């Protein structure tokens, strides 16, 4: 099901990427996300999920194929330019500047906006994350795991991305915090931001996603409506490493 036309917020065609040319980890992925969707990328360990989204963000070299944001081809654009084309990326670890204050984390991201828009935009994002607004001059390194994740998402949202990509936002968080984070992501999605999410936490992710891709060995193995995949015990057991009973 390839979404066609200008509506695709993100698409890749036969994308091959990795750290070494003769040993690509992403081996030809066709992928498409429509504007406004929330899509989750699943798959067993070592399937290349993380490498795939890092290639989209420009952190991993692409050897062949293309990646586009809307109408703009970004395959070989430098990272900072992709941000200006509307891509927000939240890495799995080290996704905040621990030595900077909360405000500086947000201000840094706002510096690419036109000057008059910066402070209003920061205020807007802070409204969404009241935890961060409370003590703006606190060093980000002192935040709790959940607060860090919120700051990372907030930082990525500042530049008003059309597409937000998150690499395992639930990693290392308690179930309660994961629920908070996911609820927050759903709200962000409903406010019009397209979201692509890499997850190990299959159940929670399928719970908020519209659609899911399952990667195996660097290729797309399955693609479909999230609800349908969640109910398919064969898919759950074979590709997601969870028992059928858990996944239902």
């Amino acid at each position, binding site marked *: 099901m390839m979404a066609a036309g200008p509506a695709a917020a993100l698409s890749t065609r036969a994308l091959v990427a990795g*750290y*070494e040319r003769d*040993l690509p*980890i992403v081996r030809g992925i066709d992928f498409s996300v429509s504007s406004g969707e929330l899509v989750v990328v699943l798959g067993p360990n070592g399937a290349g999920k993380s490498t795939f989204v890092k290639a989209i963000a*420009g*952190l*991993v*070299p692409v050897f062949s194929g293309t990646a586009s944001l809307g109408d703009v081809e970004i395959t070989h654009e*430098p*990272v900072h330019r992709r941000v200006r084309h509307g891509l927000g990326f939240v890495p799995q670890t080290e996704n905040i500047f621990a030595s900077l204050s909360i405000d500086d984390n947000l201000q840094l991201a706002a510096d690419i906006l036109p000057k008059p828009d910066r402070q209003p935009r920061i205020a807007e994002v802070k409204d969404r994350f009241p935890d961060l607004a409370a003590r703006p001059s606190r060093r980000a390194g002192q935040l709790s795991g959940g607060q860090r994740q919120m700051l990372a998402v907030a930082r990525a949202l500042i530049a008003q991305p059309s597409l937000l990509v998150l690499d395992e936002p639930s990693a290392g968080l308690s179930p309660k915090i994961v629920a908070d984070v996911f609820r927050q992501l759903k709200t962000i999605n409903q406010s019009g931001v397209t979201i692509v999410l890499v997850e190990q936490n299959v159940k929670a992710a399928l719970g908020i996603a519209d659609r899911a891709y399952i990667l195996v060995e660097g290729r797309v193995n399955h693609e479909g409506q999230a609800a349908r995949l969640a109910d398919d015990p064969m898919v759950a057991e074979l590709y997601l490493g969870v028992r059928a009973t858990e996944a239902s």
Partner: protein
Amino acid sequence: MSVELLAYVAFFLTMALTYAIMCLGLNVQWGQTGLFNVGVAGFVAIGAYASALLTSPDDPNRLGGADLPIAVGWIGGALSAGFVSFLIGALTMRLRADYLAIATFGVAVTVQLTALNLEPLTGGPFGIGFIPRPFAAWAGDPLLFSLCNLALLAVVVAALYLALEKLLRSPWGRLLRAIREDELAARTLGKNATAFRLQAFAIGGGIMGLAGAAQAHFIGFIAPENYTPMLTFQVWAMLIVGGSGNNRGAILGAVLVWGIWAASAGLISAVFPPAEQARAASLQIVTIGVALCAILLLRPRGILGEARVISRHVEGLQEDERRMGVDDINGAVGRAENT
């Protein structure tokens, strides 16, 4: 070939071999273990002064001059340089790699300063003379004298080479390389990795001290100006040209670079008027500096390259790390800049 020429060739080769010893010492530190020493000249100077003090005849104008046998001086030189290396290593080994570099640079500066100013011990700017020369009894016959010295140095270099090669292939040597090549292995070994690095650094420093002692006895006098950063630079150039990690390369590099150095110095004194010679000499350094940088850029493993002794297993581990995206921090700057 005339006798003079033969004697000169023997002299040239003997000098080259003293540099080869320094190179072998640096190779233990850098080539095998990846420790960067910017103060080679300092450690060589420690060996030279220690040996000179132990073996030179008593001099009323300064302390020392124990008049001991040459062999005692050489061993003393090696031990003192090894000891200072140990101290500096112990100070910096647990810190970031370039702290060691900065500290060794400090050693070189301080040693030179001490040699220059601690006149009662070091003779100050005039240095120490009358250092006993091996085979001094035959000094009347320049050719025989040179050949004997050459033979002695050749034996020392050969013995060192064999010992280091053996060490390199021992479990200790393999561990060192594993630590150097592979952060994962280093982390697994934890404290032990630091201890191994420290041992290697002290041994390398000791060898440099031995080189300093050997050179001092061959020339017969020493002065602070022999141990400027220039010397450090020369030894580095020798090792890089020969190929770091490769003992044969270290020796070959020493002979080659010393040859180029001596030849270009000869050329300068022949071609330029005396007033311009200092200037021309600085251009000589510029050329070698550019060459060093060019080798780092184009052939970072040197001209001979490293002898491949790394086990397949270690390479496999490295492969895994790369795949997992573990990279050194500097790589991260490069990546962020170039993607």
